[in-house]
């Protein structure tokens, strides 16, 4: 299996200018990988994510991104993403172009990407102002019913990064709980990097944590995965069902940390830049 240190995986798989998707719908957000991208100083990334939250606030605030493709940008239940807003509204620390969709469209675009199709169709967007500000929302006529439907191009990230609960010794990956759009984002990508809580011998071992065997979970077989990195706790402040709880107090605290540029930079220096991350160096 391709078990590598996180530092090496980011260095090999995430390049300046890449289109990168860090997915995880509230649950299993790959924060440790996001921090390593920041530490390695990646620039000019096109960041893709349905719900850019704290992880993209950090990447944008540290100047890693040039463009953001998203459908809902906020700190859920708390408020704004102050770093994303500062970049969009004032170009700090770098200008950020945005391409804005709805959830249904992003989910459909990842599905099209995973299916090797050029676009996705959906019944939506009609009558809204979104198509006027996003040239990637267009219209198609169904050849069978003549219905007019919205179309969006497939999402095909250069690299998708996800966090999962487990990989086994053969390099298969599985996740459970709220599985979001990770399966589609993973299979839509040219390269897939997965950080995991734990490496287990086999998913059907009698004392396995989480559901036993391969039932009711997303399994990404080893041949779809380009690198696996051990990163216990690597979703924090998001969580990994079966391993940790969502740190809601941190999400609330982030509002204050991120509001001010200097406070934000100080926090990132102390908690990200000067901390190499236990997982970063070890396989």
């Amino acid at each position, binding site marked *: 299996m391709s078990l590598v240190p996180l530092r090496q995986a980011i260095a090999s798989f995430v390049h300046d200018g890449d289109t990168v998707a860090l997915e995880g719908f509230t*649950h299993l957000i790959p924060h440790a990988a996001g921090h390593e991208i920041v530490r390695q100083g990646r620039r000019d990334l096109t960041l893709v994510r349905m719900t850019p939250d704290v992880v993209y606030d950090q990447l944008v605030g540290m100047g890693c991104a040039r463009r953001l493709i998203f459908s809902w940008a906020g700190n859920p239940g708390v408020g*704004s993403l102050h770093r994303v807003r500062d970049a969009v509204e004032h170009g700090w620390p770098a200008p950020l172009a945005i391409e804005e969709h709805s*959830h249904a469209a992003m989910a459909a675009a990842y599905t099209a990407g995973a299916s090797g199709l050029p676009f996705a169709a959906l019944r939506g967007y009609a009558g*809204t102002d*979104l198509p006027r500000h996003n040239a990637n929302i267009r219209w198609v006529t169904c050849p069978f019913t003549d219905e007019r439907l919205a179309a969006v191009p497939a999402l095909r990230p250069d690299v998708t990064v996800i966090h999962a609960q487990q990989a086994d010794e053969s390099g298969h990956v599985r996740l459970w709980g709220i599985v979001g759009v990770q399966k589609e984002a993973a299979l839509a990508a040219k390269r897939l990097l997965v950080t995991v809580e734990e490496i287990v011998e086999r998913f059907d071992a009698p004392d396995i944590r989480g559901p036993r065997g391969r039932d009711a979970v997303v399994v990404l077989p080893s041949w779809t995965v380009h690198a696996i990195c051990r990163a216990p706790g690597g979703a924090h402040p998001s969580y990994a069902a079966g391993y940790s709880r969502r740190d809601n107090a941190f999400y609330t605290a982030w509002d204050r940390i991120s509001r001010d540029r200097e406070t934000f930079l100080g926090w990132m220096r102390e908690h990200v830049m000067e901390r190499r991350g236990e997982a970063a160096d070890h396989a």
Partner: protein
Amino acid sequence: MHDREATAEEVMTVAAARTIRDGVVCFVGIGVPSAAANLALRTHAPNAVLVYESGVIGARPAVLPLSIGDGELVEGALAVVGVPEMFAYWLQGGRIDVGFLGAAQIDRFANLDTTVLGDYERPTVRLPGAGGAPEIAAAARETIIVMKQSPRTFVERLDFVTTVGHASGGRSRDALGFTGGGPSRVMTDLGVLVPDPVTRELVLDGVHEGVTVEQVRQATGWSLRVSTDVRTLPAPSREELAVLRDLEDRTRAVHSAPLG
């Protein structure tokens, strides 16, 4: 319990909860809609099926989730599906009775803005964006909107149409190819507005106890139409208030607790 008088937000939440009929399948937005739906589940609608866009079907959370993807939502739920499946099979497939939404701004035809206040390129306030709302309002059999009423939120003209309600009124929504019926009522901290069956313009249909029609007019950014027979909505019962306050107290305790 302490018989503290109900706040305007509590009155709104309880009135919104009462719109959830027992047994309906309800796609729930975060915030007040989520509080109202969970109150309904614990009072008059124990068989309502709460659906969250994170993929959770039949959620029965012990406390209110801070985000739509909190672990609390999974425990006790009927099923958890992927997000593409949620939007494709369950929402666009026509399996949702009620879409339950909030918004930053609304117009007289119940179109919603959750994208920007001011100009799109140079906004005065940048809001989170569309999320699930456009397709929820397009596909749910009916949409119920919950939001506080003021001249800043009930506006003559939206700065940005994120989500279509009844478009430009009359039968204009029908031309858009949506399968859902659109907004059926708007629950606010002052009362309830329902669309006129022909023009589809929102009409004031009821007010909360102690609220005057004039107050509602003052809190509306357009010339508000008022039903000839405005009713006074029943006040929250002691039981509803007790259940809501207990839920919110326990929610605050859980969300502010540091991880051990």
